[in-house]
């Protein structure tokens, strides 16, 4: 009996230690029980709780449009901003807090009061914006995105284990752009923003030279990420990518703190699933340890271990659909040719009917 209790205690201690290092990240996908309450929208399928979307904007859409446009023409202001006011406010976006490296199986967790955490939202113009943590059965971050461009949301959790202070930085980079709002701004990518004042260690996704607001990662495409420590590139940081299908790859950053990752698609979708806008999610994990004597809650620690996470999505490669269409074309073409070939062959083998007449008289 004593032995069993002892083993259980040891097991629970080990389990708590393991959980302490379990990766925490921000996810765009809701838990199953909330799926009906959530609406995904926009080019990037960002999630929002339905009740937080002001429904008046849809019921009185035409009326409000006209009214806002009338006012803006009077005042000479941008009618887009006016329209939003008339609609009754912006949509509030949400990001769920999840634990575990597997995108499919990661649990939805809630942060208790004893957890040391901080949340920050930075606008595309590097301005701090309000963000709140909603607690319930699961926790999620809720915020508005009014400016066009990339928003950065951070959830930073500190947890000491042994002589190391573990800092889990969960980041999400969200692009706020809707073609319905027009393209009055140039379709060019905004510079990548990073904030050493919020987190010492950060991973940023480098923009493609041809990237604009309509850009989206696709499977088979290359993405470049850079690890930064206090704003400077870090060599040898371990970056692991996990995809929704379970593909996992770990790479180390080079001299410039950069890694190239290619999202692979190791399957061909069903024809029934043909959806060019289907988003496959991925999770990026980065580990970096610094030997540093620090004091945290009046206790000394000798190491800081940064665990950085970032999740985003990629779409199926367009070439996949081309492959499937060509497959079908070849299949149908060969079928038609084979049938025609057999038909012609059979027709040519048919011999015309010839009647043979025997003249008995001639025989005599």
């Amino acid at each position, binding site marked *: 009996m004593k032995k069993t209790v002892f083993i259980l205690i040891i097991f629970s201690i080990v389990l708590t230690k393991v959980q302490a290092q379990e990766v925490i990240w921000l996810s765009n996908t809701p838990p199953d029980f909330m799926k009906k309450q959530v609406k995904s929208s926009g080019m990037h399928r960002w999630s929002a709780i339905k009740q937080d979307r002001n429904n008046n904007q849809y019921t009185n859409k035409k009326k409000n449009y006209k009214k806002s446009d009338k006012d803006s023409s009077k005042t000479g202001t941008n009618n887009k901003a006016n329209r939003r006011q008339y609609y009754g406010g912006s949509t509030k976006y949400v990001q769920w807090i999840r634990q575990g490296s597997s995108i499919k199986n990661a649990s939805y967790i809630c942060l208790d009061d004893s957890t040391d955490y901080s949340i920050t939202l930075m606008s595309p113009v590097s301005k701090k914006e309000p963000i709140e943590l909603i607690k319930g059965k699961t926790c999620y971050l809720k915020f508005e995105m009014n400016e066009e461009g990339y928003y950065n949301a951070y959830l930073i959790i500190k947890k000491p284990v042994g002589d190391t202070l573990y800092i889990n930085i969960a980041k999400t980079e969200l692009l706020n752009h809707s073609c319905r709002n027009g393209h009055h701004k140039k379709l060019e990518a905004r510079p990548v923003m990073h904030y050493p004042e919020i987190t010492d260690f950060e991973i940023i996704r480098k923009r493609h030279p041809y990237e604009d607001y309509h850009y989206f990662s696709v499977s088979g495409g290359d993405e470049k990420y850079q690890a930064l420590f206090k704003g400077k590139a870090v060599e040898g940081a371990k970056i692991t990518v996990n995809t929704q299908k379970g593909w996992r790859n770990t790479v180390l950053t080079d001299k410039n703190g950069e890694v190239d990752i290619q999202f692979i698609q190791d*399957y061909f979708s*069903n024809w029934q699933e043909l959806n060019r806008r289907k988003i496959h999610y991925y999770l990026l994990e980065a580990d970096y340890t610094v030997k540093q004597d620090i004091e945290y809650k009046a206790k000394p620690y000798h190491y800081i271990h940064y665990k950085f996470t970032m999740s985003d999505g990629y779409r199926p490669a367009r070439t996949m659909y081309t492959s*499937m269409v060509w*497959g079908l074309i*070849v299949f149908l073409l*060969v*079928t038609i040719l084979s049938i025609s070939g*057999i038909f012609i062959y059979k027709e040519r083998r048919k011999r015309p009917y010839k009647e043979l007449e025997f003249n008995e008289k001639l025989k005599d």
Partner: protein
Amino acid sequence: MQKLKFKQYIDNSNVSRFRFWVQIISFFIFVYGGYFFIEIASRLPIFSCPYVQGSPGGCYLIGVQHELNTSWSSLFSFRGLAILTSLATFLVFFIFLNKAWCGFVCPLGTLQDWITKLRKFLGFSFTRYDEMSFKKLKVIKYMLLVLLILIPLGIRNTFFGIPLPHGMHTPFCQICPARIILPLFTGDTSQIFIDFTDTTTIIMTSLGMMVAAIFLVGSFVKKRFFCFFCPMSALHFIFSKISLLRMTKDGDKCTRCGNCYRVCDVGIREIADDVISKNIVKDDCMLCVKCVEACPEDDCLKISFAGIPLFNATQEGFFKRYSGTSLTEYIKSIEPNKEQEDESK
């Protein structure tokens, strides 16, 4: 006496009908079995295609291609043992049914039989190869077997200094119609594609699509069209002699009526012409037992398992199957009526 009656009952029975039901059950198991948590083995002597989501096992050919994609040094080390183990697994299954795996169990074979039934229903005529074409075409399956062994070996090693591209890693699976057609039965259309990764994959997957199309059309006009080119059939024939299930012929009893040749789906002429060989299982045979059913000579053709006779050709069985009456009834029906004879006298 009881034993003899039972044997008589078996010999007079309609094996084709039994085969029809076995094929349906086998097809269901090897296409949907996985959905019912059925797991058989991964080195089966039939096209239990792993590309089918519900497949409860795997075809031996996919396994052997993966295993042979290795260097010479690995091949002659512990990896070689793994290759031998998988061959042994294949043989453990094969030894019981011999080529009857093709005639009774293979889902791709069953599919061809169903297509034949559809053709009959629609009233189209079928085709047979002439003797010359038959002899020439039967070599193809051996060529495919050799290629599916050599190509994976040539990827990791070089033959005559020519390295083979990795895109040919499982060359036969890429052109096998089972990979494309069998998943369709589970609603999976994901195998209909051309892989544009590189030139090799474009060629191989295009060939796959072509073979699938030819398979469907060919099976419609020729019975068991694909079995004639199947490398699994060639592999079966190599090990056919060690199998417990056998088909033998007593040439002395054969009258060369040609019934066996006429009912043969593959069109093996030797089954009628060869009166010397005892073991009559040829490389294209699929042990469907149609020839035994059609043989009207007692014990001319026999099916036995480990020496125990299972199904023999009998005159009585032949008449029962083909005329629907027993031999005695048949003779009675064709005998002239005695009363009529008397009257005529």
